[in-house]
């Protein structure tokens, strides 16, 4: 008999599925093969140990502790229903507003010159914004060139703000963290 077949028969023995003929074959093999016999004795010992070890129970009061953690069924149903209604409204509202706007402004929106005019207006607005921002930047640059001390004052101001920020964290935030961990 092959060793692997012997192992299969050993497992069948543990599961109580061995027929008499197979049992005899395994007995013969175990008498002739010391390594399989040793392994069978070890497997039997583990099997016996596991079968004799009782199941463990939780500490007293387990049911009450678990029941206290169960979610409220009615509240859950109400919450989920509300969520569904809210999601439905979130989807339906923009659609309704769209329909209303289309009915109100449909004829105006379908005029051929409208989109061209809108595009031109947007372009002009962007041009104005770019002009204003560039004028501001140029102006600020020229001012700093004429009055370089302004830059120094700005650096001093940033230092003071940073210092006060550090002191604020030390005095206000840190004591609260310490009292929270205590």
């Amino acid at each position: 008999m092959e060793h692997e077949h012997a192992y299969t028969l050993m497992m069948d023995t543990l599961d109580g599925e061995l027929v008499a003929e197979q049992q005899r074959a395994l007995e013969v093999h175990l008498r002739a093969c010391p390594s399989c016999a040793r392994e069978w004795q070890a497997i039997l010992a583990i099997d016996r140990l596991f079968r004799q070890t009782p199941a463990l129970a939780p500490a007293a009061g387990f049911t009450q502790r678990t029941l206290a953690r169960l979610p409220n069924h009615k509240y859950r149903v109400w919450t989920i229903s509300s969520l569904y209604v809210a999601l439905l409204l979130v989807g339906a509202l923009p659609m309704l507003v769209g329909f209303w706007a289309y009915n109100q402004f449909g004829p105006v929106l379908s005029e051929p010159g409208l989109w061209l005019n809108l595009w031109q207006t947007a372009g002009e607005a962007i041009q104005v914004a770019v002009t204003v921002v560039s004028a501001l930047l140029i102006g600020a640059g020229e001012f700093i060139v004429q009055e370089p001390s302004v830059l120094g004052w700005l650096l001093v101001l940033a230092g003071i703000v940073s210092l006060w920020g550090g002191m604020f964290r030390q005095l206000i935030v840190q004591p609260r963290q310490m009292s929270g961990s205590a």
Partner: protein
Amino acid sequence: MLNEEQTWLEQARQGDKIAFGKLIEAYQRPVYNLAYRMLNNSGEAEEAAQEAFIRAYTRLHTYKPNHKFSTWMLSITSNYCIDLIRKRRALLLSIDEPLPPHPALMSDKQKGPEAQIMLSEQQEMVQSLLQELQPDYRQAVVLRYWHELSYEEIADMMDTTVSAIKSRLFRARRQLAEIGVANGVSPVPMTLERAAV
């Protein structure tokens, strides 16, 4: 018992927590035992067992009465424990923490102090052996030995085939035998009788 169980299940489906409490009373031991054998920590086992019951309560509408309720509960518990073990690995937490004393063992007044110590040592030996197995082997061993599930039930629970389960148990038993003997488990004199319970 089965008729009572069906009544409790029906009432629990309607949101009756007292009826669900009776189901917890009936199944707390197998559920906790499975969690403890898998996780090897009494605090985590209690947490996992509670979580399994909470999941069962919120999913009662998915329970099919053609399965045993106990098998369904054990399936939820073992899947939850396997997820926990995977998360532990992902977090690289050590699973070698010392085994905390189990309250059920410590409060067993019927047994004398010597018997209690022996039983405690036996439990520790079993736990240390189980921890040597990879989680899916451990799961199969625990379900087979303590919950006496058939190969078909274990395969169904672990979403695999009967032959895969037989193979896992076969390898697990050989591995346990090798480690057990190396750790002082005395080999049993040769016999072909099934080990006495």
